[in-house]
């Protein structure tokens, strides 16, 4: 394992270096502290979320039930109903935020979210078609995933001309996204309200009715893709110098882009499959992380994931327990996130 060598003269203040045989990493100690703090807050909030509901459960019993330490009188409520939902909010939030950070770093445009590659609009169109033509809810995640993946392939294919130029990707993405959105609107105005309603409800996005299957899928996806994304932050930073400089430094620019795109797309597509197109997280959380911790690096990416997790969990808890009517998390994300984001925008110098 690594040893900490903070006294080395080459290391800037506030940075900790980890070294082992073939690998070394430098971590900003402030970011590390914020990350640890956030992790604790997420855990605390998760326990709090599982205490609330029609049946109030004391915190001690929640923890005991999860760990199967005592009697299992709350087993069904905690382990089958509440824990999957909480976990799903956490992993989906993290996945969306990381995906957004990847896309913004890749395309270097602050307005970009994974939807630029059509993930949400594709899923939306497919699910709207599926539900409005009267098929069952059971296959919605698969339909959503297929829609998201197809849209991404189409955008990618149409943007490819020997390479993927970010500006071309943006414009093609807008074009495809708008066409898909227009078709979805067409479906929305062509059915009766009873037919259209389920599709509209889905299109807001929620973690309601989460089960262990969803959670398992997301955890596996995140466990594979997040380390890849963190590792890719190094070539990505080189790419920030400009394409020509990066190439002359020996970086495979196109290969880096493709890997990043794949990782970002996969995270977003899995999220939309299990939770619907939840807005705002992928777009705004990366900005929040940057406003708090500075330009995107591997450790800031982890911070981004944690903020995303905390944010979606918080939105779900508020939407579920603290409003006169229970609202899906997709409504709450922007309602809560936007004011805080504006505050950050007002307080800090922007470093995109």
């Amino acid at each position, binding site marked *: 394992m690594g040893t900490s060598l903070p006294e080395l003269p080459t290391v800037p203040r506030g940075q900790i270096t980890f070294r082992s045989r073939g690998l070394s990493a430098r971590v900003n100690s402030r970011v590390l502290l914020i990350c640890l703090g956030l992790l604790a807050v997420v855990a605390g909030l998760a326990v709090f979320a599982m205490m609330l509901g029609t049946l109030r459960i004391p915190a001690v019993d929640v923890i005991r039930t999860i760990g199967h330490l005592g009697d299992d009188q709350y087993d069904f409520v905690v382990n089958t109903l509440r824990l999957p939902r909480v976990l799903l909010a956490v992993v989906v939030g993290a996945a969306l935020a990381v995906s957004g950070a990847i896309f913004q770093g890749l395309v*270097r*445009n*602050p*307005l*970009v979210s994974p939807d630029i590659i059509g993930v949400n609009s594709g899923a939306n169109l497919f699910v709207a078609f599926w539900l409005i033509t009267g098929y069952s809810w059971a296959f919605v995640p698969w339909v959503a995933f297929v829609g998201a993946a197809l849209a991404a392939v189409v955008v990618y294919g*149409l*943007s490819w*001309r020997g390479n993927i*130029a*970010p*500006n*071309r990707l*943006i*414009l*093609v993405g*807008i*074009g*495809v996204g*708008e*066409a898909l*959105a*227009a*078709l979805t*609107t*067409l479906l*929305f*105005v062509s059915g009766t*309200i009873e037919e*259209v*309603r389920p599709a*509209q*409800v889905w299109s*807001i996005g929620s973690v309601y009715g989460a089960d262990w299957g969803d959670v398992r899928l997301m955890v596996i996806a995140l466990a594979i893709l997040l380390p890849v994304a963190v590792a890719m932050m190094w070539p990505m930073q080189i790419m*920030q110098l*400009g*394409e*020509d*400089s990066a190439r002359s430094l020996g970086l495979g620019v196109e290969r880096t882009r493709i890997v990043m795109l794949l990782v970002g797309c996969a995270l977003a597509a899995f999220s939309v499959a299990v939770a619907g197109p939840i*807005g705002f997280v992928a*777009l*705004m959380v990366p*900005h929040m992380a940057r406003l708090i911790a500075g330009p995107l690096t591997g450790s800031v990416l982890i911070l981004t994931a944690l903020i995303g997790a905390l944010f979606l969990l918080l939105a779900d808890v508020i939407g579920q327990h603290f409003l006169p*009517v229970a*609202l*899906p998390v*997709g*409504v709450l*994300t*922007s*309602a809560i*996130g*936007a*004011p805080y*984001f*504006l505050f950050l*925008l*007002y307080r800090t*110098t*922007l470093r*995109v």
Partner: protein
Amino acid sequence: MTMTAGTRVGDVPVAPIGGRPRWLGRGVRATGLLVGLGCVILAALASLRFGAYGVPTSAVWDALFNYDPTVYDQAVVRSQRVPRTIIAIGIGAGLAVAGATMQAVTRNPLASPSILGVSAGSAFAVVTATFFLGLTHVSQYLWFSFFGAVVASAIVFAIGSIGNATNAPVRLTLAGVAISAMLGSWTSAILLISEETFDQIRFWFAGSVVGRDLDTFWFVSPFLVVGALVCVFMGHQLNVLSMSEDAARALGMNTGRVRLICAGLVVLITGAAVSVTGPIGFVGLAVPHIIRSIVGPDYRWVLPYSLLGGAIFLIGADLIGRVIMPTGELQAGIVTGIVGAPFLIVLARRRSLAN
């Protein structure tokens, strides 16, 4: 071209100076404007002539120049097709100019006229009013829509302008997105709670020029006309503004003031447009890009061409929407998306634009 190499993140240049082919001189571009005007007139005539109900060309002519209200064909042209054509021209032209202006002000090719929160503000006000006051008809939406649009964008501009001016375009953009998202969440909460409101409002959301009162349009047209005309003559300022904050200031421009004026005009145009037709997307976003690929990046030409291009685009969208369906109609807001997208994609794949 190495446009992206030295650019700061978030400052994707939308108007590289000097990227036009040599043959495209001033004379050619001026002639092109006249040709464009001709195309608008042709498109308008086509819009009067074609539709679900067949009208002979002579009846269109008579309806325009010696109108006899007792002839059914002429009455159809006058009461149905003239209003929607006029509205399509006005709104299309206005949105395209507003879009081009906004792309220069925010220096972001993703910016559309609704980036300042206009559409979100308008939708918010209309949905809230429908839910609480029980509005039933599009003409009642006008005031709420316009008011919502103006207030929302004023807030966006106020928040976006605070602080360090070097980042002003990015701040403005992000503030717009954040406020839009906030208003959007309230809107979707209401639509989720009240199925009745959603049922009513979903057609307005699609955006259409059908069944709109011409009086409503005349009412907001001063905002549209004044806004669009002033924007068209701001071409020089927008050229300077779109370079970079430092360059614009070094040339002696009061960037804050120019931005405020431009944003104000865009809000007037877009607010007026959305209150007549509902949110029609894509015109303001795609038309300026299409125009730029034809006439080059100089805003002194992009703006007047956008004026004409937007009009043609929306007339065309409305016309296609009514010809394509054997019965009923496709809303113009839907057609702009489906028909406009291939245009944008083809353009993006051409070298000049995507670089």
